[in-house]
């Protein structure tokens, strides 16, 4: 992976208005892999009693991270769109903790990229959520 790929994908994420609104940053990138972090923010609370982040914000993080992994794949183009995305919520994220998603684009055909991702909030052994998705490969 050329070092400037990190810069390009990182800048790309910062250029997406919704990613900026959620203050997402690229933490790492490799061939077909990406990591994206989203800090805790009270505006994103889904359960006011506990302060737990809304599942929708985790979906936005997962979708961004999966898209970044597709862009980082050597066989895929620099543009992609989500075809479908499934998220499993394993446990509520701990209020106050940054959530980090890691995605791997594990197979690419001429038209489809297959991706899986995991989100954690500090404890790598106990994921908050996992996701699987299919993304377009632009020709």
């Amino acid at each position: 992976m050329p070092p400037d790929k990190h810069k390009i994908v990182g800048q790309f994420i910062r250029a997406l208005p919704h990613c900026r609104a959620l203050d997402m940053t690229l933490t790492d990138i490799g061939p077909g892999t990406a990591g994206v972090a989203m800090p805790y923010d009270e505006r994103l609370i889904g359960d006011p009693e506990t302060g737990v982040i809304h599942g929708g914000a985790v979906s936005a993080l997962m979708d961004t991270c999966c898209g970044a992994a597709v862009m980082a794949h050597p066989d895929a183009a620099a543009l992609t769109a989500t075809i479908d995305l499934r998220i499993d919520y394993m446990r509520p994220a701990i209020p106050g903790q940054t959530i980090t998603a890691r995605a791997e684009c594990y197979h690419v055909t001429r038209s489809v990229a297959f991706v899986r991702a995991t989100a954690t909030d500090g404890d790598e052994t106990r994921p908050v959520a996992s996701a699987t998705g299919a993304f377009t490969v632009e020709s």
Partner: protein
Amino acid sequence: MVRKRPEPVQVVKQRRDAALNALVEGVPYIRFLGIAFERHGDELTAVLTYDDKLIGNPMLPALHGGVTAAFLETAAIIGLSWSYLWEDIESGKIDPETVSPAHLPRLPKTIDFTVDYLRSGLPRDAYARARVNRQGRRYASVQVEAWQDNRSRLFAQATGHFLMPARTGTLT
């Protein structure tokens, strides 16, 4: 047979709208995305008002896929809670004078959520309606459809499974 005299329309509306407001107003993320709920009888339509911060790729421009997922998930959770609370709202078990988020049962928890992206979300308002396909004591299955200009041209649809809140005596 003696027919009970129907309640005045404003009493009915006030009761239903108070419960709906209590359900929605307490959640910061719903406000952050700018989602409102329109009610016709027991039918809810979630409305996502367009804002620049909802954009994913500014070159197209299109709504962020995560925004679409979040909008559909919110429509599903509120739609499910609404159908679950309906009987208590209508029976007067939920008091419209005092109802607040603290008086309502907890919201259902998402177990899993799958979104189909059918076409890209245009930079304008979006609408969604949820249908509860099955609601058991513990689990529920909900389907959501979202559209923009034409009701029949969906831009996304989703199915999700939810864990229902425990039925306790917290209703006042």
